[in-house]
């Protein structure tokens, strides 16, 4: 009897030790599952076909890789959707972490927690063929004279003021589709996006879309780092950072990037 109790105790301790291996145990919304949020809708090339469950697209693949490192199988991952505003509202969050190309800024850090960056994007100038035919060139001097547009709830606007300082005040829109509509209507000449989004918009959404040039992250004073968003003071942050560091170290993150984000070397660099 005594032997039985000790062995049972030993077994319990062993399983306890196994569970303790995962840093995230007991820190998630629901025990044993990881709840991940993304945008509604989620856009190409970050998530393919608005179906993150399939793990296709850069952010969907990154999410599953991070979950894997944190000790969650892919069937232990559930997805939810939030808008930007929902993700920063005060009160309890309904996700463990949220990824939808959130740029890390010092001011946002005061309200929510960000993981270490999982992607650093170049910024690209999206325009149309007719603007290029009218003489727009990938130089700062030429870009200053264009009429600019940007998605209002992104860091594109401060980037625009920092990198280009246009001569006329930019027009701002609620989403990427409205920016392209304004470009199609000739109300703006060009808009600034992260490079993967710009490539998608120029290829798929915009008629006669052209990527005039890019500002590579290493040339940018405060580059656009994407981080996972978590509730302020989230206990999960160290686990997530650890997982991202491991993915960077073993080359997984670079492999996912190579698989899902298009080749970007063909785009001229703006000087």
């Amino acid at each position: 009897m005594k032997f039985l109790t000790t062995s049972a105790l030993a077994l319990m301790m062993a399983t306890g030790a196994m569970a303790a291996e995962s840093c995230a145990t007991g820190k998630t919304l629901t025990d044993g599952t990881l709840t991940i949020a993304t945008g509604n809708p989620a856009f190409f090339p970050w998530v393919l076909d608005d179906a993150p469950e399939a793990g296709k697209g850069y952010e969907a693949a990154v999410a599953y890789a991070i979950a894997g490192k944190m000790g969650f199988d892919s069937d232990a991952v559930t997805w939810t959707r939030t808008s930007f505003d929902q993700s920063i509202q005060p009160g309890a969050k309904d996700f463990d972490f949220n990824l939808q190309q959130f740029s890390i800024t010092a001011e946002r850090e005061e309200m929510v927690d960000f993981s270490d960056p999982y992607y650093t994007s170049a910024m690209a100038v999206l325009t149309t063929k007719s603007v290029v035919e009218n003489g727009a060139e990938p130089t700062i001097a030429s870009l200053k004279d264009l009429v600019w547009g940007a998605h209002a709830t992104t860091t594109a606007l401060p980037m625009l003021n920092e990198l280009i300082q246009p001569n006329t005040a930019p027009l701002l829109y609620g989403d990427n589709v409205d920016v392209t509509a304004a470009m199609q209507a000739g109300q703006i000449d060009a808009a600034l996006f992260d490079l993967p989004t710009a490539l998608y918009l120029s290829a798929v959404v915009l008629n006669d879309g052209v990527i005039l040039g890019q500002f590579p992250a290493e040339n940018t004073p405060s580059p656009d780092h994407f981080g996972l968003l978590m509730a302020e003071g989230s206990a999960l942050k160290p686990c997530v950072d650890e997982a991202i560091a491991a993915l960077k170290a073993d080359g997984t993150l670079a492999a996912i990037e190579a698989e899902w984000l298009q080749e970007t070397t063909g785009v001229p660099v703006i000087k």
Partner: protein
Amino acid sequence: MPSMTRRQAYEARQRRRATLIAAGSTAAVLIALIVLIPLTPGWEAVKHSFFNARVFEKTFPGLLNAFVMDVAIFAWCAPLIAILGLLLAVARDIRNPALYPLKLFSIVYTDVFRGLPVILVIYLIGFGIPGLGLPRPWNSPYIWGSLSLILVYAAYVAEILRSGIESIHTSQRAAALSLGLSSSDTMRFVILPQAIRRVVPANMNMFIALQKDVALLSFIGPVEIFRQAGVYKSLMANFTPYVGAALIFLAITVPATRFADHLMNKQAKARS
């Protein structure tokens, strides 16, 4: 006060008593709110997100600056709405059978534009018409966005004016005609002056609503106060700029509403 009768003294006492009770109950409610809300567990987080003094200080000047755009859009839209609304209302009242197409146009116009959500009209006209290939500056979102507001609001104002016109008793029309006025003179000198005066308070309400709907133009590009607040919100992940924008709106709309109430009271007194 020797001149006060017993009745007056009694009434004065009653008034004092009512004032005291009103003050007491208001104070009780306020104290309850001030004490109870901060006791809720999420109050600190809500305060940090919505009533953040540092964010407020940083963004308020930019918001005030952007509000100039709202005022400008309002200033050029309001007179055009009044003119178009008046034309539509008069067209609606046409009694000459040969001019029936005008009347029909007015009816269809108000039906359509009153029935459409403002934001749809703004998208359709603001992106659609410039998309046909207009050159700059004629494709400006300011022009076409303002036109959308004018078209929608004129439909509402026309209906208000029509109700004013119909509230003038037919006997006045008959009397004017019997005095030898033409039907257009009857409208101009007899009906409209009374009708417009009667619907001034209702129209004031429309213009207060317009003041707020100007913000919808931000959907097609112009950076007015609502958009500017959205930009600050997203850069700081904080909703305080919206509260700042709300305060600026209230500073304009509350006095305007009081003024409309005052006009309405004055009118009610004049009629009784």
